[in-house]
Structure formats: C-alpha cells, structure tokens
C-alpha cells in the first residue's frame, strides 16, 4: 500500500515535469503553428541560469525567478530576428529552430563541458506521511505546475492580452484590421512560450542535474505529447503531456524499461495516425 502510494507519487511528479516542459512547446505550436526544436535548449538555458546564480553564491530561488524572464527576453529577440522569417513554412521552421537549438546547446556545452553539475533542492528533505516519505521538492514541482497551468489558463481566457493572442491565432488579418499589432503578439507569444521553458528548466535542474543534453532529452517526448494532445488549444498539449508523462513513468513499473520506452512511442504514433486531431481538438483556450 505504502509502496503503491510512493509509486503513484513518483509517476505523478514525472507527469508534472513533462507538463511543465510541454506547456511552452504547446503554446507556441498551437498559437503559431511552429514546432520549436529549440524549446529543449530554452529549458537548458533556464537550468543553466539557475545553476549560475547558485554558483555565484546567490540564493537558488533568485536564479529560478530570473530564469523565465531572461529566457523570455531572449525568446522575444530571437523571434524578431530569426523565427519571424519561418512562419510561411512549418518544415523550414523545424530546421531553422533545430539549428538555433544546436547553437545554444553547443555553446552551453562549451561553457560547462561534459559534466553533470548539481544544484541542491531549494526545499530539501522529504514530507513524511506515516511511514511513507515523498520528496518535498517533487511535491513542490507538482504544486507549481498546477499554479502555472491555472495562471496560463486565466491569462489566455480572462485577460485582454489573452484575447488579443487568441484573436491573432484565429484570424491574423482581421486581428490586424482591429488594431492589434500582430507582429508584437507573435513576439509576445513566443517570448511567453520561451519563458515557460526557462521556468521548467529552473525547476527541474535540482532533480535532473545540469548537462548539455538536458533539454533535448525531453524534446521528442514533448513533441509527441503535443501531437497526442492536439494542436490548436491550450488544454490539448497539457492533457497529452499528462498522458505521455504518466505512461512513460508508469509502464516501467510493470515491464522492462526498454520495452516500456519503445511502447509509449509506438502507441503515441499509432494514436496520432488514427486520431490526427489529438485527444482534444479545436481552437481557442
């Protein structure tokens, strides 16, 4: 019983991490129609900034707060300089953002070398429930993920920023005619997606350590989650991430990890083939 509870918690916390990483990816894919191959590197940057703050003797929290802002600002600049040219062609966007990701990843690798650098958990220790111990930091990640999800939902559905964002997504020319600066909205959307990736990196670096391939490790899982969930809505990718994250954490408990790994991808691809619109179809929030 206790084991089952701890297992369920582990699975849930891994699902939350995938959701956190996929949030930004999903927003960019849904709103802009771009599968951003550099998203993993934005996660990596968020982790790196957190590590830098820690290494310089600042509190870890400071790094974690700074990460989404720095990465978001970088995203805004990159969108204006480079990503903007790719909107007409999704495949070119894939290749272009891949190149961008390669540059960022290899630069970070140059800075940190091939090491696994560790950052301590800002909230250490474990929460004890009777005889069971669950990691306090993983629990915090779950809570923050829920808060961020709620925040994104409110931002997109309740604020005028969200309204303008959705208007740009639905009909760019009409939005432009209504006085919305669509280039600015695209920039802001991309920056927002990047910031979420930066936050994800900051929060997971105590769990996974910092290494150059940290981001790319989750990238393909992230794409699959977005496709399974369905592009075109906010909820879709989140649902997809929940399913993929939970499956890839749960299946290794009942079968060989290798088989589980491959099975998740095979199932996901088969699912997308027969239900291309994903779990949750539709446009909007």
């Amino acid at each position, binding site marked *: 019983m206790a084991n089952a509870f701890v297992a369920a918690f582990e699975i849930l916390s891994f699902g939350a991490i995938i959701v956190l990483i996929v949030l930004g990816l999903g927003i960019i894919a849904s709103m802009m129609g771009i599968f951003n191959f550099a998203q993993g590197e934005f996660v990596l940057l968020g982790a790196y900034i957190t590590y830098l703050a820690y290494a310089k003797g600042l509190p870890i929290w400071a790094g974690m707060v700074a990460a989404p802002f720095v990465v978001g600002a970088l995203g805004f600049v990159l969108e204006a300089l480079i990503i903007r040219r790719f909107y007409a062609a999704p495949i070119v966007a894939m290749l272009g953002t891949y190149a961008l990701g390669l540059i960022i990843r290899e630069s970070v690798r140059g800075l940190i070398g091939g090491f696994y650098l560790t950052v301590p958990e800002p909230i250490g220790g474990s929460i004890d429930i009777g005889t069971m111990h669950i990691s306090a930091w993983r629990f915090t990640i779950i809570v923050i993920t829920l808060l961020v999800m709620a925040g994104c939902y409110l931002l997109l559905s309740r604020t005028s920023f969200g309204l303008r964002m959705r208007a740009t997504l639905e009909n760019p020319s009409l939005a432009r005619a209504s006085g919305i600066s669509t280039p600015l909205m695209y920039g802001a959307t991309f920056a927002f997606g990047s910031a979420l990736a930066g936050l994800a990196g900051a929060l997971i670096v105590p769990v996974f350590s910092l290494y150059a391939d940290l981001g790319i490790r989750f990238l393909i899982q992230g794409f699959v989650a977005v*496709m399974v969930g369905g592009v075109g809505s906010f909820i879709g990718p989140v649902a997809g991430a929940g399913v993929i994250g939970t499956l890839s954490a749960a299946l290794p408990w009942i079968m060989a990890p290798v088989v589980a*790994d491959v099975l998740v991808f095979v199932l996901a691809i088969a699912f997308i083939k027969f239900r291309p619109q994903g779990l949750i179809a539709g446009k909007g929030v």
Partner: protein
Amino acid sequence: MSKSMSAVKQAIPAEIGGETDIVMGSSGAAPQVAAGRKVLPIVEGVVLVAALAAPLVLQDYLTVFATRVVILALFALSFDLVWGYAGIMSFGQALFFGSAGYGVALLARDLDITDIFLVLPAGTLIGLTFALLLGGFLLLGRHPSSVIFVSLGTLTGSYAADRLARGWYYLGGQNGIPSISSMTLGGYEFSEGPGFYYLVLGILIVVYLLCRFLVRSQFGLALAGLRENEQRIAFFGYKAQHLKAIIFAIGGAIAGLAGSLYAFHEGFVWPNMVGVVVSTQVVLYVLFGGSGTLIGAVIGTVIVEGVSFWLSDNYRDIWPIILGLLLLLVILFRPLGLISFVLGERERVGSFGARIKGK
C-alpha cells in the same frame, strides 16, 4: 534591369522544397539561368574526377576517411530522394541506415556471413523492409498525413530505435557491436584502403546513375510535382500517397545499403547509428549541399564531413556551434544550398522556372 533581377530572386523558392514562386517568360532573367543550364553535368564531372583521383593523391589515413565520406554520401543520396524530390521530410532516415548496419553486424557475428553478395543485399533488404513498414504506416491510409506528422513520426521512430538499441543486451546495449569481421569476396577480404574506397565509389556511381534515371523519368517528374503542389498532382489522377510510399521505400533501401557498408568499414555499430544524431546529420548534408539535385547531397556530405574533419583537431569544441550558425545562414539565405551559387533553379528536376528566349 533591376526589375528582372528581382524576378530571378523570386524564382528561388522562399522555402525549401515548398511552393515555388515561378516567374514565367521573364526574358531578362536569362544570364544567370542560361549559364545554370549547362552547369550540372560539369559539376557532376568534376566531382567524379576528383573522387576517382582521391586515393592517388591522399595519404592512407585520408583514404580511409574518404571512404567513410563516400558511404555517407550514399546515405545522403537516400535522404535527398525523399526530401529533395518528393518533399517528404524524413527526420529518421538513420533508422534504415542503422538497422541495416545492426542487421549485417549480427549476420557477421552470429552466423559468420560476410560474403559481399549476401550482406549487401541483406542490408538493402532490411532498409527496404523497415521503410516499407514505417512509410506504409505513416504515408498510406484514408487521410493523407500532414508533412509535420510524417516528419515527427519518422523522428520518433528513429528515437525509439535508438532507445531500443541502447537497452537491448543482444544488440550490445550502449557499446553496440564491436569488431565486426571484414566483408569478403571469395577469398579476398575488404580492409580499409583504396580497395574498399573504389568498391564504395563504384556502388555510389551506380546508385547515383540509377537515381538520376529515376528522377528524370515520368515517375520522378510526378514526384517533383508532388513536392511543388501535392493537390495539383492528385487532381491529375496520380495516387500521390502511393508515389510517396514507393520513393520512401527506395530511399530506405539505399540507406540500408549505405548502412551495411558503413558497418563493415568502421568495423562496429553503435546506437547513435540508428538515432536522432545521425538522422539530423544527413539532413545537414543535404541542406548544405542543396536538395533536389542529387549531386548537391554528395557535395554537402563532402563539405560538412571534410570541414569537421579539418577543424576537429583544433576547434573540436566550437565546430558544432559554427556548424549550427552555417546551417542557420543557409536556411535563411540559401534555402537551395551551396550548390545554388553555381546552379540555376531550372536545373532542379521538375522546376521549370524562368524560360529562356531563343533556347
């Protein structure tokens, strides 16, 4: 004639392999394009002569390196067929390359089969089979799959294969399968050096000519039509999905052939060979050289591999960054690759761009 110059610019597609903004009958575009018309055979000839002469002028260890490059060029050719001609973004081409490599490695290890007339067809067949299965699943069916779905599907396939190879003890796990015995022809053993080089060069030339014949046939023109506008080709009565599945399978077979040669040349196979790393590497080659020209794929492989070999001693750390920057620049400013500096858009098969008066 600034107006006509802009027409030339427009004749180069704004995106790789996508919709081409064709300007018909703009006579002013002649100089650049007319020159381009005769360039392709010259480029092919120069590459051929250089390739034939290479072992005569190179030191031994460079001949070994050149052999590897020729094998990778064969692999790049397979990607150029599916991407440059049919417009299918196969982001997991290494799946066919690597699975064939693993296949022949197992043949050599467990069954002691190294005969060239057995292992190369076996590798080709493995590539073909896997491509038929994956391509059939992704490309065929009631609803045509989106380009993005196919590219992510192939990428995921390759990633899953990578994970499988890493975790499966029978395939050697992380370490792969080391010390594969040499490929044999009767009593002769192919070891690294000029013999192996001319063998793979011969194979490359044969495959290149077959591909050249294929893409210039009716079938190839239909493929190029697909690349430019799939719906239009479908309206003409072609079964677009079948054409795609066929070229995907052919690409897989060539990748399999390259993979089996690679396994015997290197003497070992390891998980990266089926995974995302090699899959994206081949995309780099073709984008650099220029997609949709066949020779562009070969040139791109030679340039990328050559420069990284050159730089890897002194600039091992920053070379990948430079590679990324160059790739980004090519995508942004030269979507048809480096070969488009000397080759007119018209010489990409199937793109009948600006027409030239009096020619």
